[in-house]
């Protein structure tokens, strides 16, 4: 039976915990909710009579030891968390189709057994294994290894899944070693889009500390055949023909660890994000530096401004305001934890340069967790919600654009990714 967690962080293996026990587990206080959560609610009503709630938000959480799904109504005050799904497997990413909210894809992998891909057609209540044959097509080239020697491309895992914005059966997968695969049959087969890995610059790509990974896939909302990908450590590449051909998009980036700091490739881009209403504006959290492009990635300029540190991993854009951007600064490349041990999300309402800390409800002492690049997501409700997963297994949520935060999960495995579906 799946583990059930409540917002108070108490776990129970009973689908319908008696209220007395729930009260005891909540420090004698009445629990904020008693929601049956042995299964994942679809959008619609869930819970017991008198305590029903319309599921408005579904949070998809990938962790080092399985996946979890959290649901709430549009108040986002109480949460039901189900899981672990794929217990024991590292789930780098779980993502939903924008076309069909019941269609989910997950990428569990394990060092011993390699990659699997799971698909759900009912919003995460049941899953089926689909194809896992990620085979580099054609000539296998070499890329730089950490020590400067050349190594042949080798598939390790899927880092990122990007379901098509126009077809529920089409989904892209970004992998380590960096390559782009696409399935047009709901995940059964995964031919490679070789134009990326065979790009002229690919022999000069090199792994970041996490591996040579393709971790971001962004579609242009005006035309799904136009996309950007980000690779650590290569940088950003863009395609205008559904991934057949690519060009680099790194002008303006500077990485002092490179022999040529402004080289065309080799930059450790950690994440890029865009707002659908202004698709030519891109925001980037780089290894160091927070950057912005106003021309679809053709050129970049720095917007780190008054951040306490411009090192970090995720970056997210407010769903309703293209000038509002969020980052999670960490101390440095060698100290992957918040400055002063205080977890603060930083928000800019000016498209960068000027940032304000958001900390109410977040740990403000002895906090030495990190937020990984795919572990920050937003919902589309009004006001918008923010969701952050940490390497310490916490899921923090804000229902007021970051002004205040609550804890959805406190003791999960290290969180690798957080995605959000807004179902209403």
């Amino acid at each position, binding site marked *: 039976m799946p583990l059930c967690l409540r917002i108070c962080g108490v776990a129970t293996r009973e689908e319908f915990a008696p209220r007395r026990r729930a009260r005891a587990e909540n420090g004698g206080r009445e629990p904020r909710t008693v929601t049956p959560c042995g299964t994942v609610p679809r959008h619609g009503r869930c819970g017991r009579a008198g305590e029903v709630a319309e599921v408005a938000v579904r949070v998809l959480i990938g962790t080092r030891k399985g996946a979890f799904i959290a649901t709430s109504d549009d108040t986002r005050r109480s949460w039901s968390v189900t899981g672990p799904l794929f217990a024991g497997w590292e789930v780098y990413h779980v993502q939903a189709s924008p076309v069909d909210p019941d269609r989910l894809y997950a990428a569990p992998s394990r060092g011993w*057994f*390699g990659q699997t891909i799971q698909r759900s057609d009912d919003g995460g209540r049941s899953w089926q294994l689909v194809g896992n044959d990620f085979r580099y097509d054609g000539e296998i080239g070499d890329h730089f290894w950490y020590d400067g020697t050349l190594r042949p491309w080798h598939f390790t895992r899927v880092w990122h899944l990007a379901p098509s914005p126009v077809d529920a059966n089409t989904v892209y997968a970004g992998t380590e070693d960096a390559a782009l695969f696409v399935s047009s049959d709901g995940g059964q087969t995964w031919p490679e889009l070789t134009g990326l890995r065979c790009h002229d610059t690919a022999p000069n790509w090199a792994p970041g500390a996490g591996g040579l990974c393709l971790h971001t896939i962004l579609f242009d909302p005006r035309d799904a055949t136009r996309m950007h990908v980000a690779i650590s450590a290569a940088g950003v590449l863009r395609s205008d023909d559904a991934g057949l051909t690519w060009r680099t998009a790194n002008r303006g980036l500077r990485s002092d660890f490179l022999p040529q700091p402004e080289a065309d490739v080799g930059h450790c881009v950690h994440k890029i994000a865009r707002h659908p209403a202004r698709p030519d504006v891109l925001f980037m959290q780089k290894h160091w530096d927070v950057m912005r492009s106003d021309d679809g990635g053709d050129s970049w300029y720095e917007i780190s401004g008054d951040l306490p540190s411009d090192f970090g991993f995720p970056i997210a854009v407010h769903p309703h305001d293209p000038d509002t951007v969020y980052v999670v600064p960490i101390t440095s490349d060698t100290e992957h934890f918040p400055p002063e041990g205080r977890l603060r999300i930083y928000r800019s309402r000016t498209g960068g340069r000027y940032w304000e800390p958001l900390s109410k409800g977040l740990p403000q002492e002895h906090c030495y967790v990190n937020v990984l690049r795919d572990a920050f997501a937003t919902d589309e409700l009004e006001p918008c919600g923010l969701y952050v997963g940490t390497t310490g297994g916490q899921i923090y949520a804000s229902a007021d654009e970051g002004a205040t935060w609550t804890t959805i999960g406190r003791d999960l495995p290290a969180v690798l990714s957080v995605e959000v579906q807004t179902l209403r």
Partner: protein
Amino acid sequence: MTEATVRVVLPTALRDLIRSSGAADPGADVSVTVAGPATWGRVLAALETRYPMLRGTLRDQATGARRPLIRFFACGTDVSHTDADQPLPDPVQLGREPLLIVTAVAGG
């Protein structure tokens, strides 16, 4: 030997993967019949035919190479580094001893 029925002991995680995929629990060991003489290459091919969800979990789907953290033991001997077409020991060929598929120990 025209055919051999080999008993295979799978790692628990792969038994779970089979069960979670909707197939019946394969039990403590799985018997597969292969054209003799049985080799670990043929045994894995038979396993993958019966349980397609195991494809890619034990060996690379493109090259057939054993995954690095998977080992094969037969009659107390590590046969992981033998050729995939090398016959397994007679007690395994005859079904008296199982072929153990073992994962590297994780700890720390």
